[in-house]
C-alpha cells in the first residue's frame, strides 16, 4: 500500500508506486486496445523527422496547439483597466466563464465579468431582451461606473446591433440615460485577443470623445496593449512618467485590478484609468502605443481626431526603450532624467557581467507579434541568436518587420520567421532544427517535454508558475528582469547537465 498518514503522497508521487504501475500495465494489456508499443515507437520517431515536418507545414485547415486566444478576452482585459468598469459579454454564458477563468489562471486574481446569457431562443429572436435585462441587473448589483460590452460568437453570427440594443436599454430604463456604456463588436472568428483589445480601446475612447471638441494640449496618451505583465509594466510606465514629470496618461491601467491586496476585503474594482482622464485624453497632443498590433484602429481613430500617433513593439531592453523614451521626451518636451539614465546604465552593466553565458546561444521565441518582436530585439542586443520566431496571430506586416529586424544585426542571420503557425509547427521546427532555448508561454512546456529544448517562461499565459506578472518585462527594468529569467534557466540547465559527472559543476559562474 503506497499511502501512509505520516507522509501523504499526492498525484506527483502516488502514481509512480509499483502498485499503480501494475494497474496501468494490466489496464493496457487487457482493456485498452491501444496500438502496440513498436508501432507507437515508430510513429514517435517519425514525428521528429523532416518528412513529417513537411507534411505538418502542408496543413491548410487543421490548427494544433495555437498560441492565440479570441477577441473578447482581449476586450475584457482592456476594459478591466478603466476605473470602476465592468466587462459585459453579449453572448452565450459559457464564454464569460471561459474568459474569467483564463485571466484568473494567469494573474491568480479574481476576474469579474457578466454575460447576457443568450440561449436558443435568443439565437432565434435576437439578444435584445438579454441586453435590456442584463444591463439592468449588472447596473443594480455591481454598481459599475462604466459597462464595457463586447460580443461573442452567437451575437455576431446572428447580427445583433449593440448600439441599437444599448439605446433601447436606456429607453427602457435599464441604466440611466447618461451612464457610460462602451461597446465593441469582437467576433471570435476575426483576428485574436490583440484585435479585441484594440476594438475595445477604440470603443471606450469613442464613447468619451465622440461629439466633443478637441482643444489640443501638450499631454500624451499611452496604450499598453494586451500584456500578461500588464500589472508591473503599467507601474513601470507610470514611474517613468513621474520621473520625467511628463503630462502623460496611461489608457487601460490594470496595475491594481490584477494585483489587489489580500487584507480582508474583495475589491471587484480597483484603480484603473480614471474616466475623467479618458475624457481629457481627447485633448492630448499625441497617443502612442507600446504594441503596434494591439492598437491599429485606435491609433487611426486618434489620428482622425487630430492627434499625433506613434507605436512601438513591446519595448524591452536598451535600444527599444531608448527609442520610446526619446519619443516621449520629444512629444512632452521633458528631458529624460538622470535616474532613468542610471537605470539604463544598470541594465548595460548587468548585460556586460553576464554576456558570456548568452552570447552565441540560440533562442526560439513564440507569442503575440509585438512580444516576439520586442523579445527578438532584446536577444540581438544580448548577443543571442534568434532561431525560430513564431506568432500564430502575426500577419504579413509583422513578418516583414521581423525580417528587417533580423537583417539589422549579424546575430540575426539564422533567424527564421513563422507567421500564422501554431505550436505543432514549432514542435517540428525544434525537432528538426533545434535551438538552445525556447522562450514563450506555459503552453511551451509540452514542446520542452517532447524536444528537450529548455523553456524560458516569458509570455502569456503563464499558468504553471506563480506571480511572474508582478515583475516587469518592458523598458530597462523589465529588461533586467527578463535577463535574469533567461540566465537562471541557462545556469539551471548547465547544472542539470553537469551534476551527472560533477565535472564543470562550478560554484562560481
Amino acid at each position: 500500500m503506497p499511502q501512509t498518514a505520516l507522509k501523504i503522497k499526492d498525484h506527483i508521487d502516488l502514481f509512480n508506486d509499483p502498485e499503480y504501475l501494475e494497474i496501468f500495465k494490466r489496464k493496457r494489456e487487457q482493456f485498452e486496445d491501444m496500438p502496440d508499443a513498436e508501432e507507437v515507437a515508430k510513429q514517435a520517431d517519425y514525428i521528429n523527422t523532416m518528412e513529417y515536418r513537411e507534411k505538418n507545414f502542408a496543413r491548410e485547415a487543421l490548427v494544433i496547439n495555437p498560441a492565440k486566444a479570441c477577441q473578447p478576452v482581449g476586450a475584457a482585459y482592456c476594459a478591466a483597466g478603466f476605473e470602476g468598469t465592468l466587462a459585459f459579454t453579449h453572448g452565450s454564458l459559457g464564454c464569460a466563464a471561459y474568459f474569467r477563468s483564463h485571466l484568473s489562471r494567469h494573474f491568480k486574481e479574481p476576474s469579474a465579468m457578466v454575460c447576457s446569457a443568450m440561449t436558443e431562443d435568443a439565437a432565434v429572436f435576437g439578444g435584445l431582451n438579454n441586453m435590456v435585462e442584463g444591463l439592468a441587473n449588472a447596473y443594480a448589483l455591481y454598481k459599475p461606473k462604466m459597462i464595457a460590452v463586447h460580443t461573442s460568437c452567437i451575437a455576431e453570427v446572428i447580427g445583433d446591433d449593440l448600439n441599437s440594443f444599448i439605446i433601447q436599454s436606456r429607453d427602457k430604463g435599464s441604466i440611466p440615460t447618461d451612464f457610460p456604456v462602451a461597446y465593441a463588436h469582437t467576433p471570435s472568428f476575426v483576428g485574436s485577443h490583440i484585435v479585441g483589445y484594440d476594438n475595445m480601446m477604440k470603443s471606450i475612447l469613442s464613447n468619451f470623445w465622440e461629439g466633443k471638441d478637441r482643444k489640443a494640449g501638450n499631454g500624451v496618451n499611452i496604450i499598453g496593449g494586451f500584456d500578461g505583465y500588464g500589472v508591473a509594466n503599467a507601474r513601470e510606465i507610470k514611474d517613468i512618467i513621474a520621473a520625467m514629470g511628463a503630462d502623460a496618461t496611461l489608457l487601460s491601467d490594470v496595475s491594481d485590478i490584477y494585483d489587489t491586496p489580500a487584507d480582508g476585503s474583495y475589491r471587484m474594482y480597483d484603480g484603473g484609468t480614471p474616466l475623467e482622464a479618458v475624457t481629457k485624453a481627447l485633448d492630448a497632443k499625441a497617443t502612442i502605443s507600446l504594441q503596434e498590433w494591439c492598437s491599429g484602429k485606435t491609433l487611426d481613430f486618434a489620428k482622425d481626431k487630430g492627434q499625433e500617433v506613434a507605436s512601438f513593439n513591446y519595448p524591452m531592453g536598451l535600444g527599444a526603450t531608448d527609442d520610446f523614451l526619446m519619443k516621449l521626451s520629444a512629444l512632452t518636451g521633458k528631458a529624460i532624467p538622470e535616474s532613468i539614465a542610471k537605470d539604463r546604465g544598470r541594465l548595460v552593466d548587468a548585460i556586460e557581467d553576464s554576456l558570456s553565458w548568452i552570447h552565441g546561444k540560440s533562442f526560439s521565441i513564440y507569442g503575440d507579434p509585438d512580444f516576439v518582436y520586442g523579445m527578438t530585439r532584446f536577444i540581438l542586443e544580448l548577443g543571442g541568436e534568434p532561431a525560430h520566431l513564431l506568432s500564430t496571430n502575426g500577419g504579413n506586416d509583422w513578418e516583414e518587420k521581423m525580417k528587417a529586424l533580423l537583417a539589422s544585426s549579424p546575430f540575426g542571420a539564422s533567424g527564421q520567421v513563422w507567421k500564422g503557425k501554431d505550436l505543432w509547427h514549432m514542435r517540428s521546427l525544434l525537432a528538426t532544427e533545434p535551438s538552445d532555448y525556447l522562450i514563450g508561454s506555459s503552453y511551451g512546456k509540452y514542446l520542452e517535454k517532447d524536444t528537450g529544448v529548455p523553456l524560458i517562461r516569458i509570455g502569456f499565459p503563464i499558468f504553471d508558475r506563480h506571480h511572474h506578472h508582478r515583475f516587469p518585462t518592458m523598458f530597462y527594468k523589465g529588461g533586467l528582469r527578463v535577463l535574469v529569467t533567461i540566465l537562471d534557466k541557462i545556469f539551471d540547465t548547465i547544472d542539470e547537465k553537469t551534476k551527472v559527472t560533477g565535472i564543470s559543476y562550478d560554484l562560481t559562474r
Partner: protein
Amino acid sequence: MDGMNPDVKAERKALIEEVLSAYPEKTAKKRARHLNVYDEGKPDCGVKSNIKSAPGVMTIRGCAYAGSKGVVFGPLKDMVHISHGPVGCGQYSWSQRRNYYTGTTGVDTFVTMQITSDFQERDIVFGGDKKLEKVIDEIHAMFPLNKGVSIQSECPVGLIGDDIEAVAKKKAKEHGKLVVPVRCEGFRGVSQSLGHHIANDAVRDWMLGKGKSKEFETTPYDVVVIGDYNIGGDAWASRILLEDMGLRVIGLWSGDATLAEIERGNKGKLNLIHCYRSMNYICRHMEEQYNIPWMEYNFFGPTQIAKSLRAIAEKFDDKIKAGAERVIAKYQPLADAVLAKYKPRLQGRKAMLYVGGLRPRHVADAYGDLGIDIIGTGYEFAHSDDYQRTAHYIKDATLVYDDVTDYELEKFIDKMRPDLVGSGIKEKYSTQKMGVPFRQLHSWDYSGPYHGYDGFAVFARDMDMAINSPVWALNKAPWKAA
C-alpha cells in the same frame, strides 16, 4: 437529531432576503426560487433548478460545449476531439480539467492538445463543412494512430446550418475510422448540463456496442465505471479498490479511457456511476436496452467508501462480498491514521460548497469524517433529482443556493464567515481576499486524487493546509487590526 437553533434559520432566511433586495424586482423574484434554508426531513432542498440564468448577474455556469468537450469527451484519450469553430473555446479549456492518462501524447493519445478548426470569417459566411472535411483528413495525416475523431460544435456551427453529420459519415467511410458529430453548441440549454446529455446521446448513437466490442469475452465480475473523469488520478485511486475486491473494470468512462472501453460499455454485469449528473442518461439507456442494472456510489471519505464497497458487493456473490470486507479492513488503518492526524485540527470547522452537479453533496460526508460541517451548498447545473439526492446529505438550516451569482456568493461568504469554501477558479481569489480559506473543488486545486482511500488522505491533508495555514492570521496589518 434535533433541528438547528431557530435563530440560525431565521438569520439565514434574513440573509437571503437581504441579498435579494439588491436585485431589480423581476430578477429578485426569479432568484428567490433558487435560494432556501433547508428544513430537516424535507424530501428535497426546496429550490428550483436547471432554469435559464438571468443575464447580467454573473452566473458561474459554463456552456454545453464545456459539458461535452470539457467533461465527457475530453478525457477519452485515443480519439482526437476537434473544437469545431473559432479558436477560443478550445483554447480556454486546453489542459484545464486535469484528466490524467497514460500514453504518448501526439502519437497514440491526444488529451492535452488543443485541436481546432479555427474558424475565420469566410467559414461563417460560406459554411464550415468543407473546412471540417479537410481538418479530418489532416488529422489522419498528422495522427495516424488515432482511433477516431469527435466533432465538438461551438456556437457558430449550429447557427450557420452546417451539416456535420453528413461530413462525419462521409469521412468515417473514407478513412475507415469513427467520426462522432456532437451538437454541443454553447447556446443550447442553460448550462453545462445539456452538453453532458448531448454527449451521452452521441455515445449511445455512434459508439456504444460498436467496433470490436462484440468479440469481447465477459466474466461474471465485469463492471463498467461511469462518470469518473480521473481528475488528478481519481479513477486510478478508485480502480485499485474495485480490482482489489475481485471485480474486473472492463471500461471506465471517460477518465483515461480508450474508445474500446466506451464501445464495450454494454458488456458489464453492473454499471457503477459516480457522477450521476453527467452520465445518468447512458446508464438509463443501457438499463432499458440491455437490461444492465446501474447503481450510484460515492468514493469520497472512508464512511461513504466503505458503504459503497459493501453496496457494490451486495450485487455479487460471497467471493466479492468477502473481497469488499478485505479491502475495507486493509485500508481502515490508513483511514484511521489520517483521521487521527487531521480530525483534531479540523473538528468543528464550517465549510461552504459551490460546485457542478455532484460534489456539492458527494463530498459532504468526507468533510463530515473530518469533523467539518457543511453550512451552505449549491450546484451550478443540478436538476431536481440532484437536490432530492442532496437532502439526506445535509443538515437542518443548511443554506442552499442554485446557480448562485457572484454577488450572492460573496455576500453569503462574508456574512456566514465559513472556515473554508470549496468552489472553482473564478471564486477562489475573491474568497481568499476576504480572508477565507479556499480549495478548488473542480480541479482539486492542482492536487488529488481525492477518490478512494489513497485520495482521502490527500483530501484531508489539503483541507488542513487550506484552513490551518498561518497566513490567514496575518492578513490584517497590525497597526490596523482590532
